[in-house]
């Protein structure tokens, strides 16, 4: 399930704000008044249940995955379980399969996020500027946003399948789309892009709405062309929103699974890292090896997030300065 949180951007920013005033905190801690204590208790009383629930099915499974990743353990062969240390990691990282699927995953991520960004920006601009049909547009693009990914995958798969689809007759081609790697990946990306561009565009729309119209008017008065206004005024003023949109879509795209599962079952070299983890753990019931793949995937995702947020803070500072 996709649980990407657009609103988290606000938090990241708020944290950046907080870091500007670290001196105030210790002082406050020293003089904890009754009121503060009450507030603390109430705070934990209210936030506690959510905290516990969030932790309950994440902390243990994560620790469990890390632990199992150190074993050679096949579910159908419980007696053959043995401790192999970092052996599974060595196997994975030295396997060409892993790197190929890393490449496929990275390619899908880069292509979809790039296309979605351009397309999403266009959508956002239309939604922002069109006076008529604005409501219809917003309603229409929410349909791909809300639709089940599996359904989207089927719709696109059938459209391109030679036996069922209208796409080949439309272009007079007889390409067997799911018979080769690149065409399969193209359709997978199309489905992914169709379904998630609306999300990207809504985040960008939020950024657009944030730009004071006086800036744009001023640029107009100065004789800037539409392109200049876009580059020099619009983009710099919504850097925060852009980064949030890119970050969350990148993390989501990197974890792509549903589309691949439905369309190719991983055939023709279309496997992604999530699929690799699925195959080892669920299909092959190699719990140890699969857990290690999962851990590596998690580390990669955290790494991407970390790199983004690192760059992000800088941008935010610039944005505040503007």
């Amino acid at each position, binding site marked *: 399930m996709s649980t990407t949180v657009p609103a988290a951007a606000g938090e990241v920013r708020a944290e950046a704000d907080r870091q500007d005033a670290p001196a105030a905190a210790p002082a406050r801690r020293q003089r904890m008044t009754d009121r503060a204590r009450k507030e603390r208790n109430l705070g934990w009383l209210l936030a506690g249940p959510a905290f516990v629930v969030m932790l309950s099915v994440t902390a243990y499974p994560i620790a469990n995955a890390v632990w199992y990743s150190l074993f*050679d353990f*096949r*579910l*159908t*062969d*419980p007696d*053959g379980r043995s401790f192999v240390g970092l052996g599974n990691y060595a*196997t*994975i990282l030295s*396997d060409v*399969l*892993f790197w190929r699927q890393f490449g496929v995953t990275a390619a899908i991520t880069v292509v979809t996020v790039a296309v979605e960004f351009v397309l999403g920006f266009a959508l956002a601009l239309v939604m922002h500027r069109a006076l008529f049909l604005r409501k219809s547009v917003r309603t229409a693009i929410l349909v791909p946003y809300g639709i089940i990914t599996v359904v989207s995958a089927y719709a696109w798969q059938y459209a391109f*399948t*030679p*036996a069922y689809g209208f796409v080949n007759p439309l272009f007079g081609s*007889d390409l*067997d789309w*799911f*018979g*080769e790697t690149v065409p399969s990946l193209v359709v997978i990306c199309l489905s992914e892009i169709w379904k998630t561009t609306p999300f990207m565009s809504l985040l960008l729309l939020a950024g657009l709405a944030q730009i004071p119209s006086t800036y744009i008017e001023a640029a107009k008065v100065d004789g800037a062309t539409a392109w200049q206004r876009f580059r020099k005024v619009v983009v710099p003023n919504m850097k925060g929103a852009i980064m949030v949109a890119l970050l969350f879509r990148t993390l989501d795209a990197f974890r792509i699974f549903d589309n691949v599962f439905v369309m190719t*079952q991983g*055939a*023709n070299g279309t496997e992604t890292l999530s699929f*690799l983890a699925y*195959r*080892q753990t*669920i*299909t*092959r*019931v190699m719990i140890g*090896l699969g857990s290690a*793949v999962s851990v590596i995937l998690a580390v990669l995702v955290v790494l991407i997030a970390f790199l983004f947020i690192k760059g992000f803070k800088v941008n935010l500072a610039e944005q505040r300065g503007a």
Partner: protein
Amino acid sequence: MGALGVAATVVAACGGGETSGAPELTWYINNAVQVEIADACNEEAEGAYVLKTSLLPNSAAPQREQLLRRLAAGDTTVDLLSLDPPFMAEFANAGFLRPFTAEEQEELSQGVLEGPLEQSLYEDTMFSAPFYGNTQLLWYKKSVAEEAGLDPAAAPVTWDQVIEAAEQTGTTVGVQGRRNESLMVWVNALVSSAGGSILAEDSQGAAAEDVESALDSEAGAEAARIMSTIANSDIAPAGLSTAGEEESRAAFQADDGGFMVNWPYVWTAFEAAEAAGAVEEGFRDDIAWARYPQVVEGEASATPLGGIGVSIGAYTEHEEAALEAVRCVRSPERQKQNMLTAGEPAASAEVYDDPEVQEAFPMYEAIREGLTDAAPRPISPYYGDVTGVVQQGYHPPDALDEQTTPARTADFLEAVLDGSRML
């Protein structure tokens, strides 16, 4: 709140069965038609047990995954399961199936055709009672074969002859090139027909790291050669590398369809297609069948083998009742019923003597023959990995190379099983 209500009724429904006294059995079925078999058995049981059904996903691999996970979880509700025979060894080895006793084994083997029987045994013990068998035949259009001067009905033909005939007549050869179990069936039949095997002879029961592949051989190369010849020729139907059984049938039904290897269910499917007007009336008059093609001229082909066995889950709480239910399900009467309703060939020889069956399946002799001379897929607790590797190594068919494919697949197979590579 409505949703909670639903939850409550579900729970109530689950608990309700126990009060009636008769043990309630769940049978995980692989085809919705088996509901009718369960109904018939319930009637026959007269309250000795209540057999309920739960439908599994539609293809072999997810069926295995579902059952495997359920049994790994020690699920006591898995009383009966319809199991694809190649996966039986894995389940048996893990202790997920209740083995049949020697006595039961003898009883359940009686009159069973060789192929289905062979694939129901793991290390000489029966873990699945043969319920139905399946085998592929060569289907062809009489007009096309005649034009090419080929008569598969008179004497067995080879793949090369079929290929040549199709090329000559500008028709297609329907085969299953999709990367799933159907591809494995094709590869295994080709390799076995050429006198080879996928696993080395003493590897069938070996520990994972000791398993050796026999694919890097003449037979493995022949399989690659035939597959790539078809895939790279004009006789390949469009979308060969994603074609399963139904796509093959569609290609065969098309005007330029000439030959096809497929399971006998296609016969009833042709009939339905005629009724629906998808093919012209009398389409079947031009259709004939023959034994699966040979790889080496003069050497009998090893026919592909499929089917389903009925096993008892190791964690069932109603062992006796489950055994009774298995007896009923695999009885020749039920096998006949299943053959007529689902189109799945019976595993027991006597069913083929039934006039009703002979009328519905004019090719009954070819089926019986196919089930007798069949080559089961490798019997190994690691079959899941074996088939996964072969499906990768021999796919897509148009990229196969008789020089490199067999060795590469064999090496990959051994590396995956000894844990040095991932699948």
